[in-house]
C-alpha cells in the first residue's frame, strides 16, 4: 500500500471511530434524558393539598394547623361543585327519558372522576382502599383528570370503511341547559383553589414506605431490598472470588484440572442470568432449603454466583499484573507465601480488584432475572436485618418491570416507575463513579 492510500485509510478509520463514539453518546443521551427528566418528576413536582393532607395523616409530617386551614379553604372552594351536583341530581328526574339515560351515565362518570380528583365526596363513607381516601396528590395528574371531566371520549364510527376514531366531546355542550353546565367552567377556573398546587421537593420518596401498592408514598422497600440483595451478594462473592483468584494466580500449578477450572469460570460468565435464577430456585431453595421459599438470602446467593466469575477474573488479572519484583522482594525478606500475598500482592492489586468488585456490584444491583424466582416480590414491607434470612423483598429492578406490566393502574403510578428507574440508574452510575475514583486514588498513592 502506498503512503497516500495508507494515510487515507488511517484517516477514514479515525473518522469511523469518531462517528461510533458520537453515536454511542447520542444513544446514551436519548436513553438518559427521559429517565432523568421523568424520573426527577417523582422527586420534584407540584403537590396538591391532598398531598399535604396525606403526608400529615399517613406520615405525621407537616404542620397540622396549616393543613387544617388549607383544608377549610379547599372545602370552601369545592362547595359549589357539590352543590351543583346535588342540584342536577334533582333536576335529572324531570328530563325526558332519552336524555336522562344518557346524562345519568355521564354523571356517573363525572362523579367517579371527581372522586378521583378531589377525594371522597361529602357524606360518603370512608373507603377501604387508601387510594379512595385521597384525591390527586400531584397537580400534573389532577390536570389529566380535569381534562377527562371536561371532555368525554367518544368513538366515531360514521365511516364504516375505517377504524373507529376517538373524538373528544365537550361535556359542557352535552349538559347545555342543565344546572350542571356551570360546573365545567367553574372547575376549569377554580381547580387551583380546590387543590392548591405548590412546588414540592419530595426527597423522602427514597425513604418512605409505599402506601396502597405505590399509589402514594415512596420506594424505600425496593431501595432497601436492592441494598440488601447487593450487599449480601458482595459479602458472599468477594471472599470466595478473591481467594479463588489468589489460588489461580499464585498457587495453582498449571495442571489440567486448573485449565478445566478456568474454562468453567469463563463459561459461568456467559450463562444467561435467567438460568442463574432457575438454578438458585432449584439449588438454594429446593435442595439446600436455605429458606422455605423466596428470601433475600437465596437471592443474594444467586446473585453472588452470577458475579463470581467477574470478580475472579478481574482479581486474577489484577494479581497477575503485580510485578514479580514485588513478590520476590517480599519472599527474599523471609515472608511466607501467604504473608507475601496479604502484605504485598493484595495491596498492589487492590485497584484492579476494587474495580472488578464495584462493577459487579452495579451488575448485582440491576439484575432482574436471578431474583425473580429467588427473592423478589411485588409488594412488601422494608425488612429488618434478620428477616433477610427468611423473607422475600421488593427490589428496584423487579418492581420496575412489575409496575410497568402488572400494576392495576399503570398510568397512575408512572412517576413512581420512573423514579425507580432513575434511582437504579443513579445507584449504578454512582457505584461506577466510585470505582473510577477509588482506583485513581489508590494508583496515585502507589505511584508516589
Amino acid at each position, binding site marked *: 500500500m502506498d503512503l497516500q492510500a495508507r494515510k487515507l485509510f488511517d484517516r477514514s478509520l479515525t473518522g469511523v471511530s469518531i462517528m461510533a463514539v458520537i453515536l454511542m453518546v447520542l444513544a446514551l443521551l436519548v436513553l438518559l434524558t427521559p429517565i432523568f427528566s421523568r424520573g426527577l418528576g417523582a422527586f420534584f413536582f407540584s403537590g396538591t393539598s391532598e398531598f399535604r393532607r396525606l403526608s400529615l395523616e399517613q406520615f405525621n409530617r407537616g404542620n397540622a394547623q396549616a393543613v387544617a386551614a388549607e383544608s377549610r379553604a379547599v372545602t370552601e372552594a369545592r362547595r359549589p361543585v357539590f352543590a351543583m351536583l346535588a342540584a342536577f341530581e334533582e333536576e335529572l328526574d324531570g328530563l325526558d327519558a332519552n336524555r336522562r339515560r344518557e346524562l345519568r351515565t355521564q354523571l356517573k362518570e363525572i362523579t367517579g372522576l371527581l372522586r378521583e380528583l378531589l377525594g371522597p365526596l361529602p357524606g360518603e363513607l370512608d373507603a377501604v382502599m387508601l387510594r379512595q381516601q385521597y384525591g390527586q396528590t400531584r397537580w400534573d395528574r389532577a390536570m389529566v383528570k380535569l381534562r377527562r371531566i371536561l371532555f368525554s371520549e367518544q368513538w366515531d364510527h360514521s365511516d364504516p370503511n375505517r377504524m373507529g376514531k376517538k373524538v373528544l366531546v365537550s361535556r359542557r355542550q352535552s349538559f347545555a341547559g342543565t344546572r350542571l353546565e356551570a360546573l365545567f367552567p367553574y372547575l376549569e377556573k377554580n381547580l387551583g383553589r380546590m387543590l392548591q398546587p405548590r412546588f414540592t421537593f419530595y426527597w423522602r420518596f427514597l425513604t418512605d414506605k409505599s402506601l396502597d401498592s405505590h399509589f402514594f408514598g415512596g420506594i424505600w422497600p425496593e431501595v432497601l431490598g436492592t441494598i440488601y440483595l447487593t450487599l449480601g451478594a458482595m459479602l458472599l462473592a468477594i471472599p470466595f472470588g478473591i481467594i479463588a483468584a489468589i489460588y489461580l494466580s499464585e498457587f495453582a500449578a498449571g495442571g489440567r484440572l486448573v485449565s478445566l477450572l478456568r474454562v468453567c469460570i469463563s463459561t459461568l460468565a456467559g450463562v444467561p442470568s435467567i438460568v442463574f435464577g432457575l438454578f438458585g430456585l432449584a439449588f438454594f431453595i429446593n435442595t439446600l432449603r436455605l429458606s422455605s421459599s423466596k428470601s433475600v438470602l437465596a437471592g443474594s446467593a444467586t446473585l453472588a454466583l452470577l458475579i463470581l466469575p467477574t470478580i475472579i477474573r478481574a482479581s486474577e488479572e489484577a494479581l497477575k499484573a503485580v510485578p514479580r519484583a514485588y513478590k520476590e*522482594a517480599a519472599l*527474599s525478606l*523471609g515472608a511466607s507465601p501467604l504473608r507475601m500475598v496479604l502484605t504485598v500482592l493484595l495491596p498492589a492489586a487492590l485497584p484492579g480488584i476494587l474495580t472488578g468488585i464495584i462493577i459487579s456490584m452495579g451488575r448485582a444491583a440491576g439484575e432482574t432475572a436471578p431474583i425473580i424466582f429467588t427473592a423478589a416480590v411485588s409488594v412488601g414491607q422494608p425488612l429488618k436485618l434478620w428477616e433477610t434470612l427468611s423473607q422475600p423483598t421488593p427490589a428496584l429492578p423487579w418492581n420496575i418491570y412489575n409496575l410497568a406490566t402488572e400494576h392495576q393502574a399503570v398510568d397512575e403510578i408512572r412517576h413512581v416507575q420512573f423514579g425507580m428507574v432513575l434511582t437504579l440508574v443513579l445507584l449504578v452510575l454512582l457505584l461506577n463513579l466510585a470505582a473510577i475514583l477509588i482506583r485513581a486514588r489508590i494508583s496515585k498513592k502507589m*505511584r508516589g
Partner: protein
Amino acid sequence: MIQSIPATPRTVPPEADAGDRQAHVACQDFSFYYGDNQAVKNVTLDFPSYQVTAIIGPSGCGKSTLLRSINRMNDLIPGSRTSGKMLFDGQEIYGPRLDVVTLRRRIGMVFQKPNPFPKSILNNIAYGRRLHDRLDKGELMATVETSLKRAGLWDEVKDRLEDNALSLSGGQQQRLCIARALAVDPEILLMDEPTSALDPRATARIEDLIAELRGRYTIIIVTHNMQQAARVSDFTAFLYEGNLIEYGQTARMFTKPSEKRTEDYMTGRFG
C-alpha cells in the same frame, strides 16, 4: 545512638587463599536444573565469611541461578531441582529440616532492578522487621534509622520517610532496597547485578557502600562489569556455561589468571 560503621580489620591477610578461611556458604558438587537444562554444573566453591565475592561470566552462564540457589529463590519454578550440597554455616540449605523463612531472613538479597514496594520509605524498611518481630514504634524507628544510615541514605530521606519509595531516584531506590535487606539483620547479602540499571554516579555510590558493608556482612555479588568486580571484591568466581572455571583472590585472578578462558573473558575476547 547510631554507630558509624567501624572499619573492620580484614579477617585474613590478603595473600591467603579462599580455602584457608571459614566458609559461610559452601557449594559441594552443587547442580541446579531447570527441567532438563542443567544451568549450574557440579560447582564446588566456598564463599568466605565477611568477604566480598564476585561471580562473573558471560550472559546465561548460570550466575543468577547459582546466586538465587543460595536463598532458594528458585524453589518455586516448576520442574526445577538440585543435586549435590549447598551448606550455610554447615547446615544443608536443601535439607528437609531447613526453614526457608529463617534462611531468607539470614540471607538478604538485592535485585538487578531496584524493587521497592509501592509503600512509604518507612514501611519499606519496616516491612522485613515486621514480618519477624513485633516491635514498638521506638524500636522500629531505631531499625529504620540504623539501616538507612548503613545504606548511606539517611541524610537524603530523613525528612521524607512518609513519602512513597517510588518517588526516589533509581540509585536511591537501590540503596533503599539494600537498607530494606539490612533491616532484618542478615549475615549474608546476595546482590544480582545491583548496579546494572543505574547511572555511573549511582553505581559509584553503591560500590562505596559495598566497601563500607564489607567485613560486617558476607557479600556475594553477580556482575557483568569487570572493573566493578576488580574494585569491590576480595574473591572472584568465573563461571562458564554452568561450570566453575576458576576461583581465587580477585587481585590474583585479574593479574595472573591460571585459565586461558578466564583471561580471554576478562580481556574481552568473548562474553
